[in-house]
């Protein structure tokens, strides 16, 4: 076999990139070809891999706003890491306290309404096609009277959605790219990400304009703002002519007398709109149903009502929440449904209490957990992704955590007596030594 042929064959069988570049081909063509037959044979072999390398590209530029997003959306990334971990440790009992996904079945009073509606759709009288994009009248009225009675929010101020996440993006589309956005740090990732996608970020303004849109919620810290704090926020928005987007998806978890709706604050109707969801009340994370309340008093600088434009968005960019989900929603806000939702919420609140107790007993500074199903645990001096990885990487400590949780439940219920010798947890500064500390003392 000639040296050239040998060389070329080897190159083809190894990584194609060096050989198949256009430059290489040019070099071969321009060199003294003593075996033209062989060369053309090689060119033939090369043609299909070459097409792969120079894949067709359109001339459409990528939306540069998407390029600004740092990484993937947070929760798919968490899911990816969880799945990778489960592949690596097939026998480990991974407990997911990550993504805020509901786990408890939906109360029967609600699912039976959805079954009923499904069957009705197969009958002449029960069939319905397109619904009002703003939601079914009955449901809008029921949401208004259930959550906003005496607050001056009416049926036609309510827009039923397929969930808060979709509505947040629709609100961003509504406001457009020329607004400035303020978010809590930390906050639910969709606020920032949707803002980036709409091109609101990275716009530096010469004058500092304070006409922000404020996105406000108690995920992930679990902290519910007090009446006094929200009054200050409303005041601030008033003074600056800003709009508050208040996310009240966890309102039913509030245990003390913190406000459940921004509209409890005088003057809020002129500066705020509120987004909420059935996800965390009725386990509707997969069913998809929520709402946004926009008061008539909320107007742009030119006096145009915000609700009117949102209505246009909803009619153009959306076609209503699923009618079956809406039937479920109506059952949610019936007398029996509300009772059932409270039971579901109560169950998760008990879970939260157990987790709070556990981390407290391990000596960690713990926030939240009283007014929301999230516990915000402080690891000073640590990168949170490192702590996350450590929790995930040490199957031992995860099993340990499970055992601890189990013990806490038993001790608090009185079925196991408190043995202060074994159950004294000395708080330590460095959390990596805390892990080994747990193992040592557990014996």
């Amino acid at each position, binding site marked *: 076999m000639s040296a050239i042929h040998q060389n070329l064959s080897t190159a083809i069988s190894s990584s194609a990139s060096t050989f198949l570049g256009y430059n290489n081909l040019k070099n071969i063509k321009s060199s003294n070809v003593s075996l033209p037959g062989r060369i053309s044979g090689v060119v033939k072999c090369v043609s299909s891999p070459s097409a792969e390398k120079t894949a067709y590209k359109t001339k459409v530029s990528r939306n540069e706003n998407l390029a600004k997003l740092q990484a993937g*959306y947070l929760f798919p990334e968490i899911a990816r890491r969880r799945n990778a971990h489960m592949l690596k440790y097939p026998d480990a009992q991974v407990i997911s306290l990550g993504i805020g996904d509901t786990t408890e079945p939906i109360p029967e009073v609600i699912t039976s309404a959805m079954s009923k509606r499904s069957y009705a759709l197969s009958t002449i009288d029960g069939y319905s096609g397109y619904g009002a994009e703003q939601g079914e009248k009955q449901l809008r009225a029921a949401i208004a009277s259930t*959550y906003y009675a005496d607050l001056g929010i009416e049926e036609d101020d309510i827009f039923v959605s397929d969930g808060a996440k979709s509505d947040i993006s629709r609100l961003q589309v509504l*406001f457009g790219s020329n607004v400035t956005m303020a978010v809590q740090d930390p906050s639910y990732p969709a606020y920032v990400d949707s803002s980036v996608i709409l091109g609101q970020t990275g716009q530096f303004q010469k004058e500092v304009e304070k006409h922000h849109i404020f996105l406000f919620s108690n995920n992930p810290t679990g902290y519910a703002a007090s009446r006094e704090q929200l009054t200050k926020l409303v005041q601030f928005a008033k003074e600056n002519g800003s709009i508050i987007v208040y996310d009240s998806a966890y309102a039913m978890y509030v245990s003390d007398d913190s*406000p459940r709706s921004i509209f409890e604050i005088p003057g809020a109707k002129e500066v705020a709109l509120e987004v909420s969801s059935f996800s965390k009340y009725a386990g509707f994370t997969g069913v998809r149903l929520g709402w946004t309340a926009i008061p008539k008093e909320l*107007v742009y600088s030119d006096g145009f009502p915000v609700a009117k434009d949102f209505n246009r968005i909803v009619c153009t960019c959306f076609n209503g929440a699923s009618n079956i989900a809406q039937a479920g929603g109506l059952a949610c806000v019936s*007398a029996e449904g509300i009772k059932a939702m409270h039971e579901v919420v109560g169950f998760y609140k008990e879970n939260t209490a157990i987790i709070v107790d556990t981390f407290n007993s391990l000596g960690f500074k713990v926030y939240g957990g009283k007014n929301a199903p999230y516990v915000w645990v402080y690891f000073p001096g640590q990168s949170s992704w490192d702590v996350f990885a450590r929790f995930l990487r040490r199957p031992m400590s995860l099993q340990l955590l499970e055992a601890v949780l189990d013990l806490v439940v038993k001790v608090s219920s009185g079925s196991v007596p408190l043995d202060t010798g074994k159950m004294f947890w000395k708080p330590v500064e460095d959390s990596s030594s805390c892990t080994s500390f747990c193992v040592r003392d557990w014996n």
Partner: protein
Amino acid sequence: MYKSLSLSSMPCKAMLQPTARITRQDSENFVDYRTKVARNPTMERLQRNYLFPEISAREAEHMEKYPNAKVISLGIGDTTQPLPDVVASSMANYAHNLSTLTGYRGYGAEQGCKELRKAIAETFYKDMGIQDKEVFVSDGAQCDISRLQAYVDSSVIIGQTGDVENESGRYRNIEYMKCGPHNGFFPNLSKAVRTDIIFFCSPNNPTGHAASREQLERLVRFAQENGSIIVYDSAYAFYITDGSPRSIYEIPGAEKVAIEVSSFSKIAGFTGVRLGWTVVPEQLLYANGFPVINDFNRIVCTCFNGASRIAQAGGLASLSKEGYKAVISLVDYYKENAEILLETFESLGVRTYGGVNAPYLWVHFPGSNSWDVFNEILEKTHIITVPGSGFGPAGKDFIRVTAFGHRENILEASKRLRSLL
């Protein structure tokens, strides 16, 4: 006081009640307050309401004016026939299972449940090289179009269009490809200016024209030559009668230039249930080589949380052996309606297009203003249609008539229209 409409006493309402009441005096202190947030200027460019709520409003007005008239709606393309039993019961069962420990499911994958993505790829894109991971399940084409930011009104809202030219009624930065009888309802591509995105619906709403294989080959070639992306809306593919392509991916090379959007609305009667899908091939690349599918996936994960699982269960059932048979007969029912209406208009001597490959008839009234014709038909026969100008300037002397309806209403409408002679 706001009384709930259908609820009895609510003992637990106390837990939900806000702990403060707003007095009238509080709100009176803030009369006529305006925020300092400027209205999104792109919203101002929208000419009027979205078309179909406008039609609904006119229908409501008419019914008030003539309370005894039996108004027949051949306007909004809304399905009327009940869902097949196998589909409805699958959704009912799924809903019921959500109240059991083993059947409960929380968040689903934003791209849709794997089984359904696979079933869509296998049913609609068999032998076209489209894989399940290129299929994104949605809550309907209307929403996906906004997520793609491609259509006229959503394009206006996103700010792609510039202002309207008052005389023509066209948006400055949109290239309008005229489709009419003169060019067989397929645009003259040799005269078309290059744009980044080409939005193409076939079978077409509102004209009812289904592009031929040869026409679509020309379109794909045009896109390739210009480096454009086609957003192909195939929501009515099931209505094709004459063997025209049902998917853009039947055309070789389309996987490098086209996205396809579709829906269960007009296949399975899911207009209220809300389910559709979008195909973004992995081979579709931006100018810098970045795969479009990566960005679309990011949008779907950030701006959406998946279609309702119950709707997805229904979608899966409609693609089962039994379900598929049932939805085909639903489609056939509407196609028969279309035949009846086509015959009716032809007997009136009116030039009518469409009605063969789509559930829409595109009726020509040369020289007239479509809103006037709309009003005249409404007044004389109490039938709602849609004026062609609502779809674009080239529709100004056309009326769109939909074939969705109960058979008896279609027959009654036919009778009334014949009486116009």
